[in-house]
């Protein structure tokens, strides 16, 4: 029911939305909760476990009951708090956790079974039979319990993440936060003021008291206007600071378009901010706590502060006949505000016999308590207990207040523990919990408006001092309410029946006592045993009361009982917001070579090699399997000429007087002896003696080398070289620069390779001028390139490099010529066959465990010099003759199948783990040999060539007799490459 003349909503703008299929009308500025209350709807959800009818408890993000689903279809959003969700034209919402309807929920039968479903019910009941847990119990429980559901489809919404920097982050824009921001901004500091509400002002928008000569809301709007006109201030409304992290980093979630219907076209629904602040002021306010009494969860029962918020901010009376129940003076305001607005106040019940209540125009009960409520899906009556007995009152709304808890959460995110303050019966932040954070206002246990304004200024002075800035000489403070806050503790009203503490998890006073009785007396154990403090509200409404009851039940004080740990995020954050952008093409950089477009145009399926995309094979008309394409491409290289883009291999330009010394140190073999104009193969080790990578290095000048790495290890090798140059030998004059991207490089391989190149090079080459392992500068149509005579296929082959801008054109030209000569492009599949036939290794072999000894390269570790890994590679265990070592494998029967990953066993040994003597690392079908061949590791393998062993692949159910052979299957003398 709307109350005329109240609220800061825009009554000129009607907004219609739907809830559970029915259309309702509200005003701009309404939340779903305020608009539904204005429409007389108080039933908004069903509880988690017992499916009890529930209405709103609060008016903020701490709401435990009124969780709704917004939107429809793929983008539907579950567990949205009706107290936070603003209405907009066309907004569709619905209730959760009820079937078939919110009004009639069959699962409410759980409530009747409640005596059996108390704390520890799951743990005690679903113990046996063991296999029933996964098959029966869990699915049933999951279906019956729970909150809202996701759509199960891909989320179509866009999210955003962003960075922000400031001198001072002010968290919360209530009286303390506004004054803090204003003070700091006037001193010239860069200020970010973040507030989770759509309207800045905090409680000032919810209270009737004046600030200066204005209403609190108008005063707040004035300050916000001043701040927004300042260049050094950034106002972030609808932004919840969700976590405090090391080094002044804060996470914050901004609801960018949750309050509009705007979707698509790149407009984000939410943004996750990472804010780096030199200092912060936490002015997050306080949360009101309910009082536990029997049936205190009926729709219509809410906190006293929430009732005032609905009345003063949204102009809504949550009931026609309202009672107020509290243990503190603050609750009296609710009764006074309601009465002043013309709402019938049935009673003000104060649990303190000595409470001072002035100017009451309504019945007052001192030293009384509410001990029960009546009604079905809405509150109809309450029972109050006074010295003269029990009495029923007909009410449709009860405002309750057990006092206020400072919002200490963020101060606990870095292991801080809050301190108990007896006078306010609440925890306050322990100073220093978060480095460079100052706490101000209600969040610090300062409750009057005037004191909050002044505390905000003081906090800003502290912050400015820390920032090395001068605070403004004087900050005028407006007149404002400055009454003391007095209360005496009342956590739960004695009596039978279930008195609810944690509304979201259906935890009652009895459950806490039972946990204590069963010796779950540590607060962390109690939490897990009862589920108190879990789910979306994280116990914001119930933690302190539950602690108090646990303390009482275990005979300890509250500070001795301790608190559970508040962790980020303060309020729920969608994973989609934190990972914004990193999906689809944004998941990781996609590295494309200069031949990418042409390869895709040729129909090549691309495979990922690290971040690179490389062609798997190039299908031709008539080919139905990849194997056919692969065999053809292998044939190009063995019989004519093949072209392959090898630009993805890492290329590192190494220069300087100490360049050769660096290479000698990182490679096992000598590079200082390499002549200019020549290339050498090298192996590098990790310091523990394991092979790190291999590749060729070319000497372009006396002090100038170009190292190549494998595609996969390029980044690691670069980092390794930098480590050596900076951390081990900073005295060396040597520079390493990645030139991977500068050069487009193509393998030209096959008997006709030189003929092809000579048709393209400005100056032809021959075997004299360009023998095997030669390198140097060349010109192609005036373009300066580099030519290396190296071979990864065993054939007469070259790699030609041109600046990347010419890469696409060079690939086209090479390909055109190759095709005229009966060759063409080859992809990764063919490349793999070509190298296995020659026994060349890749990271399938040097997979992080293999040593130089294992791959037959122990002799490459030069005895004449030190190198990384040399000492440790000599450990006896790493050169044990029985270690599995590199061998070739071929099937005894020509049709026999080989699989990579299979284990190798002695012929007669059972194929069990203990008997495994090695494994298969790479396999392929060799068109040249007409059978499958493989590379693998077998214990003492090099000594056992020509012996027959057994290959067993348990996973693919393959078993093949294989013969051990030399890993080089083709042209063992290497004549083809030299020819």
């Amino acid at each position: 029911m709307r109350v005329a003349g109240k609220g800061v909503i825009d009554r000129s703008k009607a907004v219609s939305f739907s809830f559970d299929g029915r259309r309702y009308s509200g005003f701009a500025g309404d939340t779903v909760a305020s608009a539904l209350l204005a429409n007389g709807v108080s039933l908004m959800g069903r509880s988690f476990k017992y499916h009890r009818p529930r209405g709103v408890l609060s008016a903020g993000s701490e709401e435990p009951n009124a969780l709704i689903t917004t939107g429809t279809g793929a983008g539907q959003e579950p567990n949205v708090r009706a107290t936070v969700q603003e209405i907009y034209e066309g907004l569709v919402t619905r209730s959760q956790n009820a079937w078939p309807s919110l009004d009639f929920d069959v699962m409410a039968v759980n409530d009747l079974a409640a005596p059996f479903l108390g704390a520890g019910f799951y743990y005690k009941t679903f113990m046996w039979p063991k296999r029933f847990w996964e098959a029966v119990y869990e699915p049933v429980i999951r279906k019956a319990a729970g909150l809202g559901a996701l759509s199960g489809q891909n989320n179509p919404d866009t999210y955003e993440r962003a960075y922000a920097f400031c001198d001072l982050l002010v968290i919360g824009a209530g009286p303390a936060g506004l004054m803090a921001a204003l003070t700091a901004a006037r001193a010239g500091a860069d200020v970010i003021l973040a507030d989770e509400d759509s309207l800045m002002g905090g409680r000032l928008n919810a209270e009737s008291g004046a600030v200066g000569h204005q209403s609190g809301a108008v005063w707040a709007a004035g300050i916000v206007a001043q701040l927004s006109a300042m260049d050094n201030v950034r106002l972030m409304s609808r932004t919840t600071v969700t976590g405090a992290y090391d080094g002044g980093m804060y996470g914050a979630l901004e609801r960018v378009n949750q309050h509009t219907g705007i979707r698509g076209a790149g407009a984000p629904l939410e943004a996750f901010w990472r804010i780096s602040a030199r200092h912060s002021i936490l002015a997050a306010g306080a949360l009101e706590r309910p009082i536990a009494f029997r049936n205190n969860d009926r729709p219509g029962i809410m906190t006293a502060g929430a009732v005032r918020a609905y009345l003063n901010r949204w102009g809504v009376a949550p009931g026609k006949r309202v009672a107020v129940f509290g243990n503190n003076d603050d609750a009296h305001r609710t009764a006074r505000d309601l009465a002043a607005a013309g709402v019938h106040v049935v009673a003000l019940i104060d649990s303190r016999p000595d409470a001072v209540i002035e100017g009451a125009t309504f019945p007052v009960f001192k030293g009384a308590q509410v001990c029960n409520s009546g009604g079905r899906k809405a509150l109809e009556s309450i029972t109050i207990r006074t010295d003269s007995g029990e009495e029923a009152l007909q009410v449709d709304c009860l405002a309750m207040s057990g006092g206020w808890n400072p919002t200490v959460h963020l101060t606990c995110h870095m292991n801080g523990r809050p301190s108990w303050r007896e006078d306010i019966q609440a925890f306050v932040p322990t100073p220093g919990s978060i480095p460079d954070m100052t706490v101000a206002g209600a969040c610090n246990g300062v409750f009057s408006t005037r004191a909050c304004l002044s505390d905000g200024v003081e906090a800003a002075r502290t912050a400015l001092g820390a920032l090395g800035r001068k605070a403004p000489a004087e900050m005028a403070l407006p007149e404002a309410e400055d009454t003391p806050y007095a209360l005496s503790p009342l956590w739960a009203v004695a009596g039978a029946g279930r008195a609810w503490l944690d509304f979201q998890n259906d935890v009652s006073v009895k459950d806490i006592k039972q946990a204590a009785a069963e010796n779950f007396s540590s607060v962390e154990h109690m939490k897990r045993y009862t589920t108190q403090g879990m789910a979306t509200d994280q116990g914001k409404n119930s933690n302190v009361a539950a602690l108090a009851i646990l303390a009482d039940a275990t005979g300890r004080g509250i500070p001795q009982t301790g608190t559970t740990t508040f962790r980020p995020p303060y309020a729920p954050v969608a994973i989609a917001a934190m990972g914004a952008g990193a999906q689809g093409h944004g998941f990781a950089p996609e590295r494309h070579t200069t031949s990418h477009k042409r390869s895709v145009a040729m129909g090549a399926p691309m495979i990922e090699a690290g971040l690179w995309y490389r062609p798997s094979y190039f299908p031709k008309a008539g080919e139905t399997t990849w194997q056919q394409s692969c065999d053809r491409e292998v044939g190009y290289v063995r019989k004519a000429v093949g072209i392959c883009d090898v630009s993805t291999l890492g290329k590192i330009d190494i220069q300087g007087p100490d360049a050769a010394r660096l290479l000698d140190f990182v490679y096992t073999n000598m590079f200082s002896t390499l002549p200019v104009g020549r290339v050498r193969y090298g192996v590098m080790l990790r310091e523990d003696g394991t092979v790190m990578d291999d590749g060729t290095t070319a000497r372009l000048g006396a002090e100038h080398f170009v190292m190549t790495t494998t595609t996969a290890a390029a980044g690691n090798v670069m980092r390794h070289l930098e480590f050596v140059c900076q951390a081990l030998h900073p005295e060396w004059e040597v520079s390493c620069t990645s030139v991977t991207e500068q050069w487009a490089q193509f393998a030209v391989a096959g008997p006709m390779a030189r003929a092809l190149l000579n048709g393209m090079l400005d100056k032809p080459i021959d075997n004299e001028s360009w023998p095997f392992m030669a390198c140097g500068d060349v010109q192609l149509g005036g373009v300066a390139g580099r030519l290396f005579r190296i071979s990864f296929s065993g054939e007469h082959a070259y790699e030609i490099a041109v600046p990347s801008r010419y890469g696409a054109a060079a690939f086209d030209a090479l390909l055109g010529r190759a095709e005229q000569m009966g060759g063409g492009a080859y992809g990764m599949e063919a490349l793999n066959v070509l190298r296995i036939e020659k026994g060349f290794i890749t990271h399938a072999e040097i997979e992080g465990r293999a040593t130089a000894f294992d791959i037959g390269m122990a002799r490459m570790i030069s005895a004449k010099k030190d190198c990384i890994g040399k000492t440790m590679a000599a450990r006896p265990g790493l050169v044990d003759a029985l270690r599995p070592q590199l061998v070739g494998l071929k099937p005894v029967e020509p049709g026999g199948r080989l699989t990579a990953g299979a284990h190798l066993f002695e012929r007669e040994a059972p194929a069990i783990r203990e008997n495994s003597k090695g494994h298969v690392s790479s396999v392929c079908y060799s068109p040249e040999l007409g059978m499958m061949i493989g590379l693998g590791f077998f214990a003492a393998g090099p000594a056992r060539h020509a012996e027959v062993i057994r290959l067993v692949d348990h996973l693919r159910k393959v078993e093949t007799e294989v013969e051990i052979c030399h890993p080089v299957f083709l042209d063992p003398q290497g004549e083809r490459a030299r020819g």
Partner: protein
Amino acid sequence: MRIECPMCGSRDRREFYYQGAAVMLARPDPQAHEADWEAYLHLRENPAGPTRELWQHDGGCGAWLVVTRDTVSHQISDTQLAADVKRAMGKAS
């Protein structure tokens, strides 16, 4: 978390690569005793308190850093270029 790079200034932790204890700077002599090599490669302190670590600013300037970080508070008290630390070690020995 933020790390003060001596070259680039205060930067987001995501720009840095973590390597491990700064022990790695003190590579033993090739002829050193096996135990020295084992300690260099495998033995690490696990202190509750200040520890010296190697990080690389690989999403930035590429410098290797020696970072002194408290494992209890996560507070970083010092960052230096590994090259400078290594040079100083050379002078000290």
